[in-house]
């Protein structure tokens, strides 16, 4: 830990303030994770990563940069890691899921901005997150208005490149996204001094496909009648996916899945008699485990997340048959354009996804959870509810933020929803 302090100081972090964050983490981990019963042994790895979240991986990034490596920070499931990895660089997610960073963000943003965006700016300007210090270049994207404007502010403090994400899904939009990915490729080539060759890009596609496949495997295991792993544990894994080393992460997820295969064969369940819940909605960045914790301590078990810390992150693969750089980039663009985010119009495919996933995971009900002031998801919640109702799937809509102010009320609403499913 002494090494951590030194590293954080060298990264120019605000140590005093950061200590406050470090002080609350162990308690939160204990309450949310360690209190669960019958956890898979292979969660050890993810617990370790979490327990030293600002130490282990940052230390690797520091080493990497000492040797001339470059780190790119990203904020959205649409930004393709493949291109960054192909240039020999590291991609790390910078999404921020703690109330700790929100007041810092409110110095720059109106209070009625989504907490994820506020936390983004807070984490940067408060200097309390090593990942924000370690990323050489940030990659933003034109998604929601809040993020768009926040990138302008972030860009005054750190090199930042914004990708212009289309907001519709016509054939020309797929071409346009490929074009944007080409620009990203040129940028990472310039920053790293490394060429993205066909060979390297093909390798990177395989690497990230393998990571997605591992997550797909993990999520498929949750569909079993005997749920072998809690939603809270799975959420942690999905969050770690954004910033861990891809090859190691894939190996660890597969190791966990081997254990879960055995659990399924033995009929082991972590959720005997609990109601199966699918959670849809906005991303849950680390350390936001609020909803999962509430559901899983109120008689439910989360069996799937249709979120960017869930299926939107890993569903669909990049076609590996591309031979030229252009083909590969188009294949990458096509895969990412398959994500269904509420920033797009129309976005009826997202409701199709939710219905399909609810059926696949045999969910008893859907809880749509949106971050406060996220207009696009909030508005879409209504049509999602109508679709679910039409399919006979019970639906509960929740709007919440990173604070615990509404925990009591949410416990009642979620508890009642689960009672009604019985």
């Amino acid at each position: 830990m002494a090494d951590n302090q030194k590293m954080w100081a060298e990264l120019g972090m605000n140590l005093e303030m950061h200590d406050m964050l470090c002080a609350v983490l162990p308690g939160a981990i204990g309450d949310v994770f360690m209190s669960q019963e019958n956890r898979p042994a292979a969660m050890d790895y993810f617990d370790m990563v979490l327990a030293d979240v600002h130490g282990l991986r940052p230390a690797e990034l520091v080493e990497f940069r000492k040797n001339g490596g470059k780190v790119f920070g990203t904020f959205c499931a649409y930004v393709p890691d493949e291109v960054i990895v192909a240039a020999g660089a590291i991609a790390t997610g910078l999404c921020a899921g703690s109330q700790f960073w929100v007041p810092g963000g409110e110095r720059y943003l109106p209070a009625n901005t989504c907490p994820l965006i506020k936390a983004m700016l807070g984490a940067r300007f408060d200097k309390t997150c090593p990942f924000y210090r370690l990323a050489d270049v940030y990659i933003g994207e034109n998604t929601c208005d809040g993020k768009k404007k926040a990138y302008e502010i972030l860009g005054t403090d750190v090199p930042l490149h914004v990708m212009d994400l289309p907001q519709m899904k016509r054939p020309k939009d797929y071409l346009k996204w490929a074009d944007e990915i080409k620009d990203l490729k040129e940028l990472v080539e310039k920053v790293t001094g490394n060429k993205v060759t066909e060979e390297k890009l093909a390798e990177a596609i395989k690497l990230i496909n393998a990571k997605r496949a591992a997550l797909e495997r993990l999520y498929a295991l949750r569909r079993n009648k005997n749920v072998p792993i809690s939603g809270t544990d799975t959420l942690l894994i999905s969050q770690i996916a954004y910033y861990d080393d891809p090859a190691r992460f894939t190996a660890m997820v597969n190791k966990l899945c081997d254990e879960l295969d055995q659990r399924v064969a033995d009929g082991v369940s972590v959720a005997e008699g609990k109601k199966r819940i699918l959670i849809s909605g906005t991303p849950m960045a680390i350390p936001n485990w609020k909803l999962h914790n509430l559901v899983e301590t109120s008689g439910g078990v989360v069996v799937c997340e249709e979120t960017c810390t869930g299926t939107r992150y890993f569903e669909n693969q990049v076609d590996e048959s591309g031979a030229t750089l252009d083909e590969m980039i188009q294949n990458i663009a096509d895969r990412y354009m398959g994500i269904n985010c509420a920033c797009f119009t129309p976005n009826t495919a997202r409701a199709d996804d939710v219905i399909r996933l609810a059926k696949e995971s045999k969910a008893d009900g859907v809880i749509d959870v949106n971050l406060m002031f996220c207009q696009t998801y909030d508005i879409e919640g209504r049509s999602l509810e109508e679709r679910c109702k039409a399919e006979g799937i019970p639906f509960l809509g929740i709007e919440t933020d990173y604070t615990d102010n509404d925990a009591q009320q949410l416990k009642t609403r979620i508890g009642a929803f689960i009672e009604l499913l019985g």
Partner: protein
Amino acid sequence: MSRKYIGIDIGSTASKVCILEEGKEPVFEVLPTGWNSKITAGIIKQDLEKRYDDLDDAKVVATGYGRISVEYADHVITEISCHGIGGYNMIGRDCTIIDIGGQDTKYINVVGGKPIDFLMNDKCAAGTGKFIEVMANRLGLTIEELFELAEIGEPISISSLCTVFAESEVINYMGEGRSREDLAAGVIDSVALKVATLVQRKELQDTVIITGGFSNNEFFASLLSKKLGKTALAMPDGRYAGAYGAALLAKQKDK
């Protein structure tokens, strides 16, 4: 002697108790919750033990805001389920329940005797009992007086969505010398409007009943009916719906 079933509804303002016994009318009790619901739960227990000497095998279900404070409860069930079951059994048929509680307002739809859908205000205290309480204090009235004055006043529109802002709006009107009757009418009118707005996206059945602290108030019921465009029935024992439902569920769970 037959087994007793006890429902305890620890609300944010008042705590309600219902005792059910084979062949007897349900007994209802109410007491203020005070600042500590654990203490309230203790008082209820002592009180029950004083009055009945055969509680050893009684079954207790706790509900309401402070439900987890009732450590001696056999089951803990949310107020949504309890109000649903209680309201349904009070009226004796499928219905839509609008519960105006001290802290929140709930919509519960009961079909086939079962609560199947619900909604709770999640934004703020406007449209809840808290709002009425704050405004009564501001106007120097008891809640009963507020309702009485409201009946003879001409409602002044109070448009703020937030209790704190609504309070300053009322203070402004007071400064302008508006009458207390008109302000009281405005307060009650705004609560009815907010409740109606809350439930506008939801299905209302032919029978709509009001439960919670103001459920026996005919004036409020008629006002709410106007806003809903549907008759909302005042329920004399409506404030006990949660406790009654809890007691009924205690019985059901025992079978």
